[in-house]
Protein backbone atom coordinates (compact mmCIF):
# COMPACT_ATOMS: atom_id res chain seq x y z
CA UNK A 1 0.00 0.00 0.00
CA UNK A 2 0.99 3.55 -0.44
CA UNK A 3 2.90 5.11 2.33
CA UNK A 4 3.41 8.72 1.52
CA UNK A 5 6.68 9.26 3.27
CA UNK A 6 7.68 12.88 3.51
CA UNK A 7 11.35 12.05 3.94
CA UNK A 8 11.95 10.13 0.75
CA UNK A 9 11.12 12.30 -2.20
CA UNK A 10 12.39 12.33 -5.74
CA UNK A 11 14.01 15.49 -7.13
CA UNK A 12 10.76 16.70 -8.78
CA UNK A 13 8.33 15.41 -6.21
CA UNK A 14 6.32 17.41 -3.74
CA UNK A 15 3.75 16.60 -1.09
CA UNK A 16 0.44 18.39 -1.31
CA UNK A 17 -2.13 18.35 1.44
CA UNK A 18 -5.73 18.47 0.36
CA UNK A 19 -8.31 19.04 3.05
CA UNK A 20 -9.60 18.50 5.67
CA UNK A 21 -11.39 21.76 4.91
CA UNK A 22 -11.27 21.50 1.14
CA UNK A 23 -14.81 21.92 -0.23
CA UNK A 24 -14.63 19.08 -2.71
CA UNK A 25 -13.62 16.47 -0.17
CA UNK A 26 -17.28 16.34 0.89
CA UNK A 27 -16.60 16.74 4.56
CA UNK A 28 -13.47 16.35 6.55
CA UNK A 29 -11.31 14.08 4.50
CA UNK A 30 -7.64 14.91 4.28
CA UNK A 31 -5.69 13.52 1.37
CA UNK A 32 -1.94 13.64 1.30
CA UNK A 33 -0.83 13.58 -2.31
CA UNK A 34 2.63 12.88 -3.55
CA UNK A 35 3.04 14.69 -6.82
CA UNK A 36 5.45 14.59 -9.69
CA UNK A 37 4.53 17.79 -11.47
CA UNK A 38 0.80 17.49 -12.06
CA UNK A 39 0.74 13.70 -11.71
CA UNK A 40 -0.23 11.86 -8.57
CA UNK A 41 2.38 9.22 -7.74
CA UNK A 42 1.09 8.27 -4.32
CA UNK A 43 -1.63 9.15 -1.91
CA UNK A 44 -2.77 8.59 1.60
CA UNK A 45 -6.18 9.31 3.07
CA UNK A 46 -6.16 10.63 6.60
CA UNK A 47 -9.51 10.12 8.26
CA UNK A 48 -11.07 10.12 11.70
CA UNK A 49 -11.92 13.81 12.06
CA UNK A 50 -15.57 12.95 12.49
CA UNK A 51 -15.10 9.91 14.70
CA UNK A 52 -17.76 9.83 17.39
CA UNK A 53 -17.32 6.29 18.64
CA UNK A 54 -20.68 5.03 17.45
CA UNK A 55 -19.75 1.42 18.12
CA UNK A 56 -18.76 2.23 21.71
CA UNK A 57 -21.95 4.21 22.28
CA UNK A 58 -23.96 1.19 21.14
CA UNK A 59 -22.60 -0.88 24.00
CA UNK A 60 -24.07 1.59 26.49
CA UNK A 61 -27.54 1.90 24.98
CA UNK A 62 -30.46 -0.45 24.68
CA UNK A 63 -31.32 -1.83 21.27
CA UNK A 64 -34.06 0.74 20.69
CA UNK A 65 -32.02 3.62 22.05
CA UNK A 66 -29.22 2.99 19.60
CA UNK A 67 -31.49 3.12 16.54
CA UNK A 68 -31.40 6.94 16.09
CA UNK A 69 -27.60 6.94 16.23
CA UNK A 70 -27.28 4.94 13.03
CA UNK A 71 -29.00 7.76 11.13
CA UNK A 72 -26.02 9.93 11.90
CA UNK A 73 -23.54 7.76 10.08
CA UNK A 74 -24.52 8.10 6.46
CA UNK A 75 -26.59 11.18 7.12
CA UNK A 76 -27.69 11.63 3.52
CA UNK A 77 -29.19 8.13 3.53
CA UNK A 78 -30.51 7.82 7.06
CA UNK A 79 -33.46 5.66 6.06
CA UNK A 80 -31.19 2.99 4.60
CA UNK A 81 -29.06 2.94 7.74
CA UNK A 82 -32.14 2.49 9.85
CA UNK A 83 -33.43 -0.32 7.68
CA UNK A 84 -30.16 -2.25 8.02
CA UNK A 85 -30.06 -1.85 11.78
CA UNK A 86 -33.71 -2.71 12.38
CA UNK A 87 -33.53 -5.79 10.19
CA UNK A 88 -30.31 -6.92 11.88
CA UNK A 89 -31.89 -6.72 15.34
CA UNK A 90 -35.02 -8.43 14.04
CA UNK A 91 -32.87 -11.26 12.72
CA UNK A 92 -31.18 -11.46 16.11
CA UNK A 93 -34.57 -11.69 17.79
CA UNK A 94 -35.71 -14.30 15.29
CA UNK A 95 -38.67 -12.23 14.13
CA UNK A 96 -39.70 -10.38 11.02
CA UNK A 97 -41.56 -7.20 10.25
CA UNK A 98 -45.14 -7.70 8.94
CA UNK A 99 -45.64 -7.57 5.14
CA UNK A 100 -47.15 -4.10 5.17
CA UNK A 101 -44.21 -2.68 7.07
CA UNK A 102 -41.79 -4.37 4.70
CA UNK A 103 -43.37 -2.81 1.65
CA UNK A 104 -43.49 0.68 3.18
CA UNK A 105 -39.86 0.26 4.20
CA UNK A 106 -38.97 -0.66 0.64
CA UNK A 107 -40.69 2.43 -0.78
CA UNK A 108 -39.02 4.80 1.66
CA UNK A 109 -35.62 3.19 1.20
CA UNK A 110 -35.84 3.47 -2.56
CA UNK A 111 -36.85 7.12 -2.30
CA UNK A 112 -33.85 7.57 -0.05
CA UNK A 113 -31.61 5.97 -2.64
CA UNK A 114 -32.85 8.46 -5.21
CA UNK A 115 -32.29 11.33 -2.75
CA UNK A 116 -28.79 10.13 -1.97
CA UNK A 117 -27.90 9.72 -5.63
CA UNK A 118 -29.31 13.17 -6.40
CA UNK A 119 -27.14 14.75 -3.76
CA UNK A 120 -24.18 12.86 -5.15
CA UNK A 121 -24.97 13.94 -8.71
CA UNK A 122 -25.37 17.59 -7.82
CA UNK A 123 -22.21 17.90 -5.77
CA UNK A 124 -20.13 15.69 -8.04
CA UNK A 125 -21.07 17.76 -11.06
CA UNK A 126 -20.40 20.92 -9.08
CA UNK A 127 -16.91 19.69 -8.18
CA UNK A 128 -16.11 19.08 -11.82
CA UNK A 129 -17.41 22.49 -12.83
CA UNK A 130 -20.97 21.93 -13.98
CA UNK A 131 -22.82 24.46 -11.87
CA UNK A 132 -26.35 23.88 -13.11
CA UNK A 133 -27.34 20.31 -12.11
CA UNK A 134 -27.05 20.89 -8.37
CA UNK A 135 -30.06 23.22 -8.38
CA UNK A 136 -32.22 20.75 -10.25
CA UNK A 137 -31.07 17.87 -8.08
CA UNK A 138 -31.90 19.69 -4.90
CA UNK A 139 -35.28 20.63 -6.29
CA UNK A 140 -36.22 16.99 -6.75
CA UNK A 141 -34.55 15.90 -3.54
CA UNK A 142 -36.70 18.42 -1.72
CA UNK A 143 -39.81 16.59 -2.91
CA UNK A 144 -38.53 13.37 -1.39
CA UNK A 145 -37.62 15.07 1.86
CA UNK A 146 -41.12 16.50 2.01
CA UNK A 147 -42.54 12.99 1.80
CA UNK A 148 -40.23 11.93 4.64
CA UNK A 149 -41.23 14.94 6.67
CA UNK A 150 -44.87 14.22 6.23
CA UNK A 151 -44.35 10.58 7.09
CA UNK A 152 -42.22 10.85 10.22
CA UNK A 153 -41.65 14.52 10.94
CA UNK A 154 -37.96 14.62 10.06
CA UNK A 155 -36.16 15.31 6.84
CA UNK A 156 -32.58 14.23 7.31
CA UNK A 157 -32.04 12.01 10.32
CA UNK A 158 -35.41 10.41 10.04
CA UNK A 159 -35.45 7.41 12.37
CA UNK A 160 -38.29 6.28 10.14
CA UNK A 161 -38.36 2.61 11.16
CA UNK A 162 -38.60 0.81 14.45
CA UNK A 163 -37.30 -2.59 15.40
CA UNK A 164 -40.16 -4.92 14.47
CA UNK A 165 -41.79 -2.72 11.88
CA UNK A 166 -42.94 0.88 11.75
CA UNK A 167 -44.14 3.31 14.34
CA UNK A 168 -46.36 5.34 12.04
CA UNK A 169 -49.01 4.40 9.55
CA UNK A 170 -48.60 6.04 6.18
CA UNK A 171 -50.40 9.36 5.96
CA UNK A 172 -53.42 10.00 3.76
CA UNK A 173 -52.35 10.53 0.20
CA UNK A 174 -48.96 8.89 0.67
CA UNK A 175 -49.33 6.67 -2.38
CA UNK A 176 -50.52 9.57 -4.52
CA UNK A 177 -47.60 11.73 -3.51
CA UNK A 178 -45.07 9.01 -4.20
CA UNK A 179 -46.75 8.38 -7.53
CA UNK A 180 -46.75 12.05 -8.43
CA UNK A 181 -43.08 12.27 -7.65
CA UNK A 182 -42.25 9.16 -9.64
CA UNK A 183 -44.30 10.21 -12.65
CA UNK A 184 -42.58 13.54 -12.75
CA UNK A 185 -39.15 12.16 -11.99
CA UNK A 186 -38.66 10.14 -15.16
CA UNK A 187 -38.71 13.36 -17.18
CA UNK A 188 -36.33 14.99 -14.69
CA UNK A 189 -33.65 12.32 -15.08
CA UNK A 190 -33.78 12.81 -18.83
CA UNK A 191 -33.31 16.48 -18.16
CA UNK A 192 -30.16 15.90 -16.12
CA UNK A 193 -28.88 13.65 -18.84
CA UNK A 194 -29.28 16.33 -21.47
CA UNK A 195 -27.04 18.50 -19.32
CA UNK A 196 -24.29 15.97 -18.78
CA UNK A 197 -24.31 12.68 -20.65
CA UNK A 198 -23.13 14.01 -23.98
CA UNK A 199 -21.62 17.20 -22.70
CA UNK A 200 -18.08 17.35 -24.10
CA UNK A 201 -16.58 18.85 -21.00
CA UNK A 202 -18.29 16.32 -18.75
CA UNK A 203 -17.20 13.41 -20.92
CA UNK A 204 -13.68 14.80 -21.13
CA UNK A 205 -13.43 15.18 -17.40
CA UNK A 206 -14.85 11.76 -16.51
CA UNK A 207 -14.04 9.22 -19.26
CA UNK A 208 -10.96 7.20 -18.49
CA UNK A 209 -10.52 8.88 -15.11
CA UNK A 210 -10.07 6.77 -12.01
CA UNK A 211 -10.34 3.36 -13.62
CA UNK A 212 -10.95 0.44 -11.28
CA UNK A 213 -10.93 -3.06 -12.77
CA UNK A 214 -13.30 -5.74 -11.54
CA UNK A 215 -10.45 -7.79 -10.01
CA UNK A 216 -9.14 -4.79 -8.12
CA UNK A 217 -12.60 -3.85 -6.99
CA UNK A 218 -13.25 -7.29 -5.53
CA UNK A 219 -9.82 -7.45 -3.91
CA UNK A 220 -10.40 -4.03 -2.35
CA UNK A 221 -13.82 -5.06 -1.06
CA UNK A 222 -15.56 -2.37 -3.09
CA UNK A 223 -19.35 -2.71 -3.29
CA UNK A 224 -22.33 -0.80 -4.61
CA UNK A 225 -22.44 1.28 -7.79
CA UNK A 226 -18.63 1.46 -7.90
CA UNK A 227 -18.41 -2.31 -8.16
CA UNK A 228 -21.20 -2.50 -10.72
CA UNK A 229 -19.54 0.11 -12.90
CA UNK A 230 -16.52 -2.19 -13.02
CA UNK A 231 -18.65 -4.91 -14.56
CA UNK A 232 -19.71 -7.08 -11.64
CA UNK A 233 -23.44 -7.57 -11.76
CA UNK A 234 -24.05 -7.87 -8.05
CA UNK A 235 -26.68 -6.22 -5.98
CA UNK A 236 -27.71 -7.44 -2.54
CA UNK A 237 -31.33 -6.61 -3.29
CA UNK A 238 -31.19 -9.41 -5.84
CA UNK A 239 -28.46 -11.67 -4.43
CA UNK A 240 -29.78 -11.89 -0.88
CA UNK A 241 -33.14 -10.12 -0.87
CA UNK A 242 -34.38 -8.37 2.24
CA UNK A 243 -37.42 -6.18 3.01
CA UNK A 244 -39.82 -6.77 0.09
CA UNK A 245 -37.37 -6.70 -2.82
CA UNK A 246 -38.08 -10.27 -3.88
CA UNK A 247 -41.55 -9.14 -5.06
CA UNK A 248 -40.43 -6.52 -7.54
CA UNK A 249 -38.86 -6.57 -10.96
CA UNK A 250 -35.86 -4.38 -11.52
CA UNK A 251 -32.64 -4.46 -13.43
CA UNK A 252 -29.11 -4.23 -12.14
CA UNK A 253 -27.31 -1.72 -14.35
CA UNK A 254 -23.66 -2.46 -15.00
CA UNK A 255 -20.88 -1.03 -17.15
CA UNK A 256 -17.54 -2.41 -18.13
CA UNK A 257 -14.75 0.15 -17.97
CA UNK A 258 -15.05 1.15 -14.33
CA UNK A 259 -14.16 4.80 -14.88
CA UNK A 260 -15.82 7.90 -13.47
CA UNK A 261 -18.16 8.17 -16.44
CA UNK A 262 -19.37 4.60 -16.02
CA UNK A 263 -20.11 5.16 -12.37
CA UNK A 264 -22.13 8.20 -13.39
CA UNK A 265 -24.14 6.17 -15.89
CA UNK A 266 -24.73 3.36 -13.41
CA UNK A 267 -26.06 5.71 -10.76
CA UNK A 268 -28.33 7.49 -13.22
CA UNK A 269 -29.78 4.16 -14.28
CA UNK A 270 -30.16 3.09 -10.67
CA UNK A 271 -32.34 6.10 -10.00
CA UNK A 272 -34.61 4.99 -12.84
CA UNK A 273 -34.78 1.49 -11.39
CA UNK A 274 -35.54 2.81 -7.92
CA UNK A 275 -38.36 4.83 -9.40
CA UNK A 276 -39.76 1.67 -11.02
CA UNK A 277 -39.56 -0.21 -7.73
CA UNK A 278 -41.48 2.58 -5.98
CA UNK A 279 -44.15 2.53 -8.67
CA UNK A 280 -44.57 -1.24 -8.39
CA UNK A 281 -44.67 -1.08 -4.61
CA UNK A 282 -47.34 1.59 -4.25
CA UNK A 283 -49.61 -0.39 -6.57
CA UNK A 284 -50.20 -2.91 -3.88
CA UNK A 285 -49.35 -2.10 -0.28
CA UNK A 286 -50.81 -5.02 1.70
CA UNK A 287 -53.14 -4.24 4.56
CA UNK A 288 -52.46 -5.46 8.05
CA UNK A 289 -50.45 -4.61 11.12
CA UNK A 290 -47.29 -2.50 10.84
CA UNK A 291 -45.56 -3.78 13.94
CA UNK A 292 -44.55 -7.29 14.90
CA UNK A 293 -45.27 -8.46 18.44
CA UNK A 294 -41.90 -8.11 20.07
CA UNK A 295 -42.56 -6.58 23.47
CA UNK A 296 -41.28 -3.37 24.97
CA UNK A 297 -38.05 -4.72 26.44
CA UNK A 298 -35.81 -6.38 23.91
CA UNK A 299 -33.61 -9.15 25.17
CA UNK A 300 -32.36 -11.10 22.17
CA UNK A 301 -31.12 -14.58 22.98
CA UNK A 302 -27.31 -14.79 23.15
CA UNK A 303 -25.69 -15.14 19.79
CA UNK A 304 -24.56 -13.06 16.90
CA UNK A 305 -25.84 -11.93 13.58
CA UNK A 306 -24.50 -10.28 10.48
CA UNK A 307 -27.05 -8.61 8.29
CA UNK A 308 -26.38 -6.38 5.35
CA UNK A 309 -28.36 -4.34 2.89
CA UNK A 310 -27.64 -2.59 -0.37
CA UNK A 311 -27.33 1.00 0.82
CA UNK A 312 -26.94 3.73 -1.84
CA UNK A 313 -23.17 3.56 -1.34
CA UNK A 314 -22.70 -0.19 -1.20
CA UNK A 315 -23.00 -3.03 1.24
CA UNK A 316 -23.95 -1.71 4.64
CA UNK A 317 -23.65 -4.45 7.23
CA UNK A 318 -24.32 -4.75 10.92
CA UNK A 319 -22.59 -7.39 12.99
CA UNK A 320 -24.33 -7.53 16.36
CA UNK A 321 -23.36 -9.73 19.27
CA UNK A 322 -25.89 -10.27 22.01
CA UNK A 323 -25.15 -11.57 25.50
CA UNK A 324 -28.81 -11.89 26.38
CA UNK A 325 -29.16 -8.51 28.07
CA UNK A 326 -31.03 -5.41 26.95
CA UNK A 327 -27.90 -3.80 25.57
CA UNK A 328 -25.92 -5.11 22.64
CA UNK A 329 -22.59 -6.60 23.63
CA UNK A 330 -20.97 -5.41 20.46
CA UNK A 331 -22.21 -3.62 17.36
CA UNK A 332 -19.94 -3.50 14.39
CA UNK A 333 -20.91 -1.43 11.39
CA UNK A 334 -19.53 -2.43 8.03
CA UNK A 335 -19.46 0.96 6.37
CA UNK A 336 -19.46 1.00 2.57
CA UNK A 337 -17.92 4.47 2.34
CA UNK A 338 -14.96 3.56 4.52
CA UNK A 339 -14.12 0.49 2.50
CA UNK A 340 -14.76 2.06 -0.89
CA UNK A 341 -12.54 4.99 0.05
CA UNK A 342 -9.64 2.61 0.47
CA UNK A 343 -9.67 2.04 -3.27
CA UNK A 344 -9.03 5.75 -3.79
CA UNK A 345 -5.27 5.24 -3.94
CA UNK A 346 -5.62 2.68 -6.72
CA UNK A 347 -7.84 5.01 -8.71
CA UNK A 348 -5.82 8.17 -8.16
CA UNK A 349 -2.34 6.95 -9.02
CA UNK A 350 -1.23 8.35 -12.33
CA UNK A 351 -4.11 10.81 -12.44
CA UNK A 352 -3.77 14.60 -12.60
CA UNK A 353 -4.38 16.74 -9.53
CA UNK A 354 -7.57 18.13 -11.05
CA UNK A 355 -8.90 14.60 -11.46
CA UNK A 356 -8.46 13.85 -7.78
CA UNK A 357 -11.53 15.97 -7.15
CA UNK A 358 -13.49 13.92 -9.67
CA UNK A 359 -12.27 10.66 -8.14
CA UNK A 360 -13.23 11.62 -4.59
CA UNK A 361 -16.65 12.62 -5.87
CA UNK A 362 -17.20 9.48 -7.87
CA UNK A 363 -16.66 7.12 -4.93
CA UNK A 364 -19.56 8.88 -3.21
CA UNK A 365 -18.36 8.94 0.37
CA UNK A 366 -19.99 10.45 3.39
CA UNK A 367 -17.47 11.20 6.09
CA UNK A 368 -19.97 10.59 8.85
CA UNK A 369 -19.95 6.98 7.77
CA UNK A 370 -16.24 6.73 7.05
CA UNK A 371 -15.34 7.91 10.55
CA UNK A 372 -18.43 6.80 12.45
Amino acid at each position, binding site marked *: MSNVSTTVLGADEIILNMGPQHPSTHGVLRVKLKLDGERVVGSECIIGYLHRGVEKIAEHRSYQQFAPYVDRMDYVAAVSNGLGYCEAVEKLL*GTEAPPRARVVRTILTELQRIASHLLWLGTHALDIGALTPVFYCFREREEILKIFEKYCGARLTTHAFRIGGLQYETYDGFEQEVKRFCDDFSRRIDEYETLLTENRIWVGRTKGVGILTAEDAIAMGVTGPVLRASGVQWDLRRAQPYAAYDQYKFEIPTRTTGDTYDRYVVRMEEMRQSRLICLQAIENIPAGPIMARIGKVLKPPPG*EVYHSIEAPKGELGYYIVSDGTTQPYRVRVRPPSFINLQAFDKMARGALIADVVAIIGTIDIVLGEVDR
Partner: protein
Amino acid sequence: MKKQFGEAVREASLDRKQAIILIAVEHLREISRYCRDHEKFDMLIDLTAVDWPKREKRFDVVLNLYSFPKNERLRLKAHASENEPVSSVCEIWPVANWLERECYDMFGIVFEGHPDLKRILMPDEWQGYPLRKDYDILKQDTDWVRENLGIESGQ
Protein backbone atom coordinates in the same frame (compact mmCIF):
# COMPACT_ATOMS: atom_id res chain seq x y z
CA MET B 1 -12.19 -28.38 5.80
CA LYS B 2 -11.90 -30.35 8.98
CA LYS B 3 -10.17 -33.03 6.94
CA GLN B 4 -7.77 -30.60 5.37
CA PHE B 5 -6.70 -28.81 8.53
CA GLY B 6 -7.51 -31.26 11.34
CA GLU B 7 -7.12 -29.68 14.73
CA ALA B 8 -6.77 -26.16 13.36
CA VAL B 9 -10.49 -26.10 12.70
CA ARG B 10 -11.91 -26.16 16.22
CA GLU B 11 -15.61 -25.99 15.67
CA ALA B 12 -18.14 -25.38 12.95
CA SER B 13 -21.61 -24.20 13.81
CA LEU B 14 -24.76 -22.62 12.51
CA ASP B 15 -26.26 -19.65 14.30
CA ARG B 16 -29.50 -18.26 12.82
CA LYS B 17 -28.64 -19.83 9.45
CA GLN B 18 -25.14 -18.33 9.37
CA ALA B 19 -22.10 -20.56 8.94
CA ILE B 20 -19.44 -19.90 11.54
CA ILE B 21 -16.09 -21.64 11.77
CA LEU B 22 -13.86 -21.30 14.79
CA ILE B 23 -10.22 -21.76 13.90
CA ALA B 24 -6.88 -21.68 15.67
CA VAL B 25 -5.35 -18.25 15.33
CA GLU B 26 -1.94 -19.59 14.24
CA HIS B 27 -3.54 -21.00 11.12
CA LEU B 28 -5.52 -17.91 10.21
CA ARG B 29 -3.48 -17.08 7.14
CA GLU B 30 -3.40 -20.54 5.57
CA ILE B 31 -7.07 -21.17 6.24
CA SER B 32 -7.92 -17.77 4.77
CA ARG B 33 -5.92 -18.59 1.67
CA TYR B 34 -7.67 -21.92 1.41
CA CYS B 35 -11.06 -20.23 1.72
CA ARG B 36 -10.23 -17.82 -1.04
CA ASP B 37 -8.61 -20.24 -3.46
CA HIS B 38 -10.54 -23.46 -2.92
CA GLU B 39 -13.81 -22.44 -1.40
CA LYS B 40 -14.15 -19.38 -3.67
CA PHE B 41 -14.70 -16.84 -0.92
CA ASP B 42 -13.26 -14.08 -3.03
CA MET B 43 -14.32 -11.08 -1.01
CA LEU B 44 -13.47 -10.18 2.55
CA ILE B 45 -16.52 -8.19 3.58
CA ASP B 46 -15.44 -7.26 7.06
CA LEU B 47 -12.78 -7.89 9.63
CA THR B 48 -13.37 -6.96 13.21
CA ALA B 49 -12.97 -8.11 16.78
CA VAL B 50 -15.00 -8.66 19.93
CA ASP B 51 -13.55 -8.30 23.40
CA TRP B 52 -14.35 -10.85 26.11
CA PRO B 53 -12.06 -9.69 28.93
CA LYS B 54 -12.90 -12.53 31.31
CA ARG B 55 -11.77 -15.20 28.91
CA GLU B 56 -8.21 -16.44 28.88
CA LYS B 57 -7.84 -15.48 25.22
CA ARG B 58 -9.82 -12.30 25.33
CA PHE B 59 -10.33 -11.36 21.69
CA ASP B 60 -12.46 -12.89 18.95
CA VAL B 61 -11.03 -11.90 15.61
CA VAL B 62 -13.94 -12.11 13.18
CA LEU B 63 -13.73 -12.30 9.39
CA ASN B 64 -16.88 -12.09 7.33
CA LEU B 65 -16.38 -13.60 3.91
CA TYR B 66 -18.53 -13.61 0.83
CA SER B 67 -18.38 -15.79 -2.23
CA PHE B 68 -19.62 -14.35 -5.52
CA PRO B 69 -19.85 -17.66 -7.39
CA LYS B 70 -21.73 -19.39 -4.56
CA ASN B 71 -23.62 -16.37 -3.17
CA GLU B 72 -22.77 -17.55 0.32
CA ARG B 73 -21.35 -16.05 3.44
CA LEU B 74 -18.93 -17.57 5.89
CA ARG B 75 -17.64 -16.27 9.16
CA LEU B 76 -14.18 -17.19 10.39
CA LYS B 77 -13.45 -16.66 14.04
CA ALA B 78 -10.25 -17.05 15.99
CA HIS B 79 -9.48 -16.51 19.66
CA ALA B 80 -6.43 -14.39 20.39
CA SER B 81 -4.92 -13.29 23.68
CA GLU B 82 -3.87 -9.76 24.44
CA ASN B 83 -0.23 -9.96 23.47
CA GLU B 84 -0.54 -12.56 20.80
CA PRO B 85 0.21 -11.29 17.31
CA VAL B 86 -2.34 -12.29 14.69
CA SER B 87 -1.10 -12.87 11.17
CA SER B 88 -2.29 -10.28 8.69
CA VAL B 89 -4.44 -11.30 5.75
CA CYS B 90 -3.56 -8.22 3.67
CA GLU B 91 -1.78 -10.32 1.05
CA ILE B 92 -4.86 -12.45 0.56
CA TRP B 93 -7.46 -9.68 0.57
CA PRO B 94 -5.95 -6.19 0.19
CA VAL B 95 -9.10 -4.72 1.72
CA ALA B 96 -7.85 -5.98 5.08
CA ASN B 97 -5.34 -3.14 5.21
CA TRP B 98 -7.65 -0.51 6.67
CA LEU B 99 -9.81 -3.03 8.49
CA GLU B 100 -6.80 -4.37 10.38
CA ARG B 101 -5.65 -0.86 11.12
CA GLU B 102 -9.04 -0.08 12.60
CA CYS B 103 -8.95 -3.26 14.61
CA TYR B 104 -5.53 -2.33 15.96
CA ASP B 105 -6.75 1.19 16.67
CA MET B 106 -9.80 0.06 18.59
CA PHE B 107 -8.59 -3.11 20.29
CA GLY B 108 -4.81 -3.03 20.20
CA ILE B 109 -4.55 -6.29 18.31
CA VAL B 110 -1.23 -6.45 16.49
CA PHE B 111 -1.38 -7.88 12.98
CA GLU B 112 1.91 -9.41 11.99
CA GLY B 113 2.96 -8.76 8.43
CA HIS B 114 0.75 -5.72 7.98
CA PRO B 115 2.51 -3.18 5.72
CA ASP B 116 1.69 -0.08 7.73
CA LEU B 117 0.04 -0.78 11.07
CA LYS B 118 -0.90 2.48 12.73
CA ARG B 119 -3.98 4.15 14.11
CA ILE B 120 -6.61 5.14 11.58
CA LEU B 121 -9.62 6.78 13.24
CA MET B 122 -8.12 7.96 16.53
CA PRO B 123 -5.28 10.52 16.66
CA ASP B 124 -1.79 9.01 16.57
CA GLU B 125 -0.97 10.03 20.13
CA TRP B 126 -4.11 8.49 21.60
CA GLN B 127 -3.68 6.39 24.74
CA GLY B 128 -5.58 3.15 25.12
CA TYR B 129 -7.90 1.19 22.86
CA PRO B 130 -11.46 2.51 22.93
CA LEU B 131 -13.47 -0.59 22.09
CA ARG B 132 -11.94 -2.76 24.78
CA LYS B 133 -14.47 -3.49 27.47
CA ASP B 134 -12.19 -2.15 30.21
CA TYR B 135 -11.82 1.20 28.46
CA ASP B 136 -14.01 3.44 30.54
CA ILE B 137 -15.64 6.31 28.69
CA LEU B 138 -15.80 8.50 31.78
CA LYS B 139 -12.31 7.87 33.06
CA GLN B 140 -10.59 9.79 30.34
CA ASP B 141 -12.81 12.80 30.91
CA THR B 142 -12.29 12.82 34.68
CA ASP B 143 -8.54 12.41 34.22
CA TRP B 144 -8.41 15.35 31.85
CA VAL B 145 -10.37 17.58 34.24
CA ARG B 146 -8.16 16.61 37.16
CA GLU B 147 -4.98 17.19 35.23
CA ASN B 148 -5.88 20.41 33.46
CA LEU B 149 -8.29 22.13 35.82
CA GLY B 150 -7.06 20.75 39.12
CA ILE B 151 -10.56 19.82 40.33
CA GLU B 152 -12.63 16.67 40.51
CA SER B 153 -14.99 16.17 37.61
CA GLY B 154 -18.66 16.17 38.43
CA GLN B 155 -19.43 13.42 35.92
